[in-house]
Each structure stands twice: as structure tokens, then as C-alpha cells.
């Protein structure tokens, strides 16, 4: 978990409990997120134990039959995960024939045209743009609306505060499958015009379904921030709104980054909601486009383009994961233990 980084970034109160989001307030999950947040000695040098020891290896021996055996399993699993993903990459340079008849073979000639075929003819370019518009809008919307609600719920006492908080948090336990049928009709019969297969409709739905966890996470985060700075700003004459946007939001940056990545990944990979609410081909997002091509895939179809399309869909996620590896892992594991 990124406790140590967040500590530094949170600045004003370095001795406070690690505001990794869920734990410190006591209302968070009782699971590991809690324990990790309070982690070993509050995020000092020992905090990333288990992540660091790779470096320490080398000179010392790790002999023994047991080690050979268990190391073998680790390598085997790494291959089982890594090879299929690399296979997608190298298949994206092969022609359909090569993918089908020699699945393990490396490409003899690099078929770059797969990529342009995927982008143009298989409409991946269009789906990529659609996905970017929807996810861009909804991540920003989720962050703004989610932190507004969380800030108010964390910092102000007013009648109904608890009710609203639990109303949001309860949303984490609604199975989306149960909601899609009524949701479809809420969208179809929306006053004014149907929201089905529109960017703004999809954005609103993504925001709504991301709010429960975002509010939960950010409420815990805002509670850990010091009150003194906000009070000073108020005394200097800043309004509540101004205090929020100019003082509290910048201070909450580490939390915003964690939850932002979490929402980005979840929304980029969303499948069920667009499947039901976005059944118009020119508005498809990447996951729908890929599923459609895969489901229609026959003998004469372009497997190379499908593979290139998959790489195109994976690239943004791969980049985010590679850059923010620890935040991604921390965010997703905290997210699961809602």
C-alpha cells in the first residue's frame, strides 16, 4: 500500500494516521485495508515489506528441495499469466491464418496492417474515442460529485447526515444485475429524451454507480485531514465553497488520485452497463466492440485485427498500471473490501 507516499503528500499532519482512505476513522472496513493503513509503524521504512525483499536477494542461497518446488510454482503461474497476454501482443502482428493454424508461432512478417484494420475497419478507433469521452466525463464527474458529498458528510453535522451517508454506502451491496432492468426503463423513459445510447446518459450512470465507493472512501479521507487549515481559511473570510475548492481539495490530492485510478479502471473496463444501455453500434465502447467482434468471429474474419483491437483496449490500462502500480493495487484491494 502506498501509505508512505501518501503520508508525505498529505503534509500538514505527518504524525496522523495514514489516510489511505478506509481504515483510520473506525467506520471503515474491518479488513486488511484498516490494518494496512495503520501498517507497520505508520509507513516507515518497513512499510512495504513483502514488496521490497526482491532487492535483498542475490548473494544468499535459497537452496532446498522445497524452495525449488515452490519457486517452480511461482514461475509456472507467472508463465500462465504472462504468456497469454504476450500471445495477444505477438498475435496482433500475425495474419489470421497464422493465428489459427500456428497459435504458438511468432510472427514471421510483422503485419502492421492489423493495427490500421482494427482502428479503421473494425471501428476500434471509434470505440476508443467513445470510451475516452464517456470515461473522461464520468471520472471527472465522479470525482467532483463524490468529493463534494463526502466533504459535507465528513465535515459538517446536520440532521440526516448519517442517513445520507448510509444511503450512499448501501449502494455498494446492490447487485448491479438486479438493477439493470429498471435502470433500462429509467433511461428509456427519461423526461425530455431517452438517455439510451447517449454519451451523457452513460456518463451519468457511470457516475451514479461509482458514487457509493467514492463517497465511502473520500469521507474516510476527509475525516483524517486536519481541521486547522480550513478554519484558518474561514477566518480569513473564505466562503465554504472556496475553502473546499482551494484548500481542502488540494490537501485531499493523494486520496483523489487513488480513487481516481480506481474509477478509471472500473469504468474503462465496464461491460454490463453499456451492454444494456448502449445498444447502438456507433456509440459502442471498447469492451462492447471487442465482444461483438469476438462473438461474430467466423472463419473468414480478421483475427489479427481482433488481437490488435485488444491491445488497443489494453494499452491505457497497461500504462496506468505500470506507472501507478502500487496505488492501483492498494486502490483495488481497498475497493474490494467495501
Amino acid at each position, binding site marked *: 500500500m502506498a501509505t508512505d507516499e501518501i503520508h508525505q503528500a498529505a503534509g500538514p499532519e505527518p504524525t496522523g494516521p495514514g489516510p489511505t482512505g478506509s481504515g483510520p476513522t473506525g467506520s471503515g472496513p474491518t479488513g486488511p485495508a484498516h490494518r494496512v493503513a495503520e501498517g507497520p509503524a505508520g509507513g516507515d521504512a518497513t512499510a512495504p515489506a513483502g514488496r521490497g525483499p526482491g532487492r535483498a536477494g542475490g548473494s544468499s542461497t535459497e537452496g532446498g528441495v522445497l524452495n525449488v518446488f515452490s519457486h517452480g510454482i511461482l514461475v509456472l503461474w507467472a508463465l500462465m499469466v504472462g504468456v497469454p497476454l504476450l500471445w495477444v501482443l505477438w498475435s496482433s502482428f500475425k495474419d489470421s491464418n497464422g493465428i489459427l493454424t500456428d497459435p504458438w508461432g511468432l510472427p514471421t512478417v510483422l503485419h502492421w496492417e492489423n493495427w490500421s484494420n482494427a482502428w479503421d475497419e473494425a471501428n476500434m478507433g471509434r470505440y476508443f474515442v467513445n470510451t475516452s469521452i464517456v470515461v473522461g466525463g464520468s471520472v471527472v464527474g465522479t470525482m467532483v460529485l463524490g468529493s463534494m458529498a463526502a466533504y459535507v458528510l465528513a465535515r459538517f453535522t446536520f440532521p440526516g447526515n448519517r442517513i445520507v451517508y448510509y444511503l450512499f454506502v448501501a449502494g455498494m451491496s446492490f447487485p448491479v444485475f438486479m438493477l*439493470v432492468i429498471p435502470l433500462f426503463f429509467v433511461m428509456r423513459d427519461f423526461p425530455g429524451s431517452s438517455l439510451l445510447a447517449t454519451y451523457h446518459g452513460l456518463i451519468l450512470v457511470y457516475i451514479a454507480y461509482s458514487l457509493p465507493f467514492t463517497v465511502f472512501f473520500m469521507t474516510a479521507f476527509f475525516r483524517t485531514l486536519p481541521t486547522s487549515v480550513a478554519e484558518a481559511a474561514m477566518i480569513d473570510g473564505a466562503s465554504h465553497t472556496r475553502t473546499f475548492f482551494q484548500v481542502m481539495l488540494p490537501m485531499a490530492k493523494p486520496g483523489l488520485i487513488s480513487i481516481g485510478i480506481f474509477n478509471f479502471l472500473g469504468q474503462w473496463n465496464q461491460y454490463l452497463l453499456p451492454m444494456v444501455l448502449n445498444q447502438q453500434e456507433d456509440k459502442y465502447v471498447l469492451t462492447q466492440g471487442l465482444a461483438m467482434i469476438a462473438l461474430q468471429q467466423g472463419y473468414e474474419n480478421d483475427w489479427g485485427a481482433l488481437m490488435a483491437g485488444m491491445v488497443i483496449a489494453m494499452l491505457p490500462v497497461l500504462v496506468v498500471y505500470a506507472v501507478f502500480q502500487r496505488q492501483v493495487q492498494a486502490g483495488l484491494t481497498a475497493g474490494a473490501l467495501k
Partner: protein
Amino acid sequence: MQHGKYRFIAGFLAPPLIVYAVFVVSPFVQAFQISLTDWSGLVGSARFVGADNFVRLWESDEFWNALRHNVYMLAFVPLVTLALGLFFAFMLNVGGRRRRNEVVTGVAGARFYTFVFFFPQVISITIIAVIWFNIYNPDPDDGMLNSLLGAVGLDGLQNAWLGEKSIALWCISAVMVWGHVGFYVVLFSAAMASIPRDIYEAALLDGASRHHTFFRITLPLLWDTVQTGWVYMGIIALDAFALVQIMSVNMGGPDGATDVMPLRLYLTAFRDSQYGYAAAMGVAMLAVTMAFAVLTLRFARRERIEY
């Protein structure tokens, strides 16, 4: 500064609350309503039918078939996923041999393994489904798995995989395990990192084997995490929609062998337009999910160990 307070609270709370109420809370309430009607999607055509949909559901062999598959997955997937996750996390955090200054340490390359193992967790389920669809390709030369088995001389194990009624469901379950193990490695690693080192050191000084260390120290101290992870994985096993929809032969085939509740609901609603009946399935799924979560948390409860 109190005068503007309530206006500020209302102004900040209203937009998120309205969006949430319209798209999440109101569908939740409506799901129960719709499940009591024979609605087919045309405005004004819904008729109140009471519990008819639920009676029909109770008598539906198709739904029981789908539910049974979900229950198989519920028994198999979390068990295997969590066991592998625990094993790998232990290896990566505690399993290494003594080094110069550290008594307790993971095996070499732990960071790399964690990075690779976690990767399926961040990519779309659609992509995972397409990849495994190709791995399971039944052709002995074209299928990745079959050609691999052929190459190492295990032709006898070659199979039609997703096309074979008796194993198709397990093939899909295996993909679920594959996709989620990395997540539990990270989750359990985080929990293990918070176990005080001196407990391990004391155990090792007393001559405890790794086997002992795992069952007497790590597992008991991790029990809360394991339990929560179990519920989470169980909920995933009750879903399986995208995997079955994309990978299985004829959506839920061969011959219904991989059918699952969410797929049934999806087809009943959006292919057959029987929205009332499908909504009843949704309510039934909610009941199954809740029952599972409550039972797990009740039976897995142990005295919490403070440290």
C-alpha cells in the same frame, strides 16, 4: 459563519444525491415492483400478478439449472483462488530463506511476481474471455492448449474443453481463478505485512518449520481478511456473466451446461422481453447473494486475535 452553512450543505449534497437517487436507488425499488408484474416493456401494459413470477421461477428447471451452476462455482472458485492466493502471498512475503539481516523475508523477485500476477485484475473481462476462448479452441492443432498438450506428448489429455458438456463449466471456473489469484496475493501480502515480524522471529527461533509458521501464525492472524475475501470472491462466482456470454458455446451451452443466473436474467429481459419475470430473477439473485454473505460471515466467525 453559521448562516451560510445549510445552504452550502444543500448545494453540495443535492447534485450527487439526485444522480444517485435517480439511477441507483429508484431502480432498486422498482426492481421489486416490476417483479410483481407481467410487464413486457410497453408503457402501460403491466399487470399486477402478485407472486406469479416467483412461482414460475420456482418451477423453472432452467433457472434451477443456472442456479446450480452458480452454486458449483461458489464452492469451487473461492476455495481454489484463496488457497492459491494465500500460498503465493506466503511464498512472496515469508517463504524465503534467511538472509543477512532479515529473518523473515520473501523469495527473490517477489515484486516482479506480484506485478505479473495482478495484471489480469486490471484488464477487461471481455479481453480475458477472448484470450481464453482461443486457449480452449477445441482443434488439436489450432487450439493453444491442445497444441501445447500435443507438443509435450500428452495427446490423451486433449479435449474439446468448452464444447465438452462435462467440463465446460470447470473450464470457465478456471478462468475466474486465473483472473483473481493475483488480487488475493496483493490483498494477503498487505495483511501479512502488518503481522509483527517478532512473532515470526520467535517461532523460527523455537525451530518452527515453514509449514508450522503458516498454519499456526499466518493463517489465524489473517482470518478476517480471508473471510472478507471469501465473500467477495463468492459474489464474483455468482456473476460469471461476461465469461459465459463470450466464451461458452451458444451462450450457456453446450446444452445448458454453463448457463448461469445473470445470463438467464439478461436473455429473459433483453431477448425475450419478459421484464417482469426477469426482475423476479433479479430479486431471487439478491436473496441468494445475501444468504451467501450472511451464512459465510456467520459460520466463518472466530475469536478475533488482537496483536
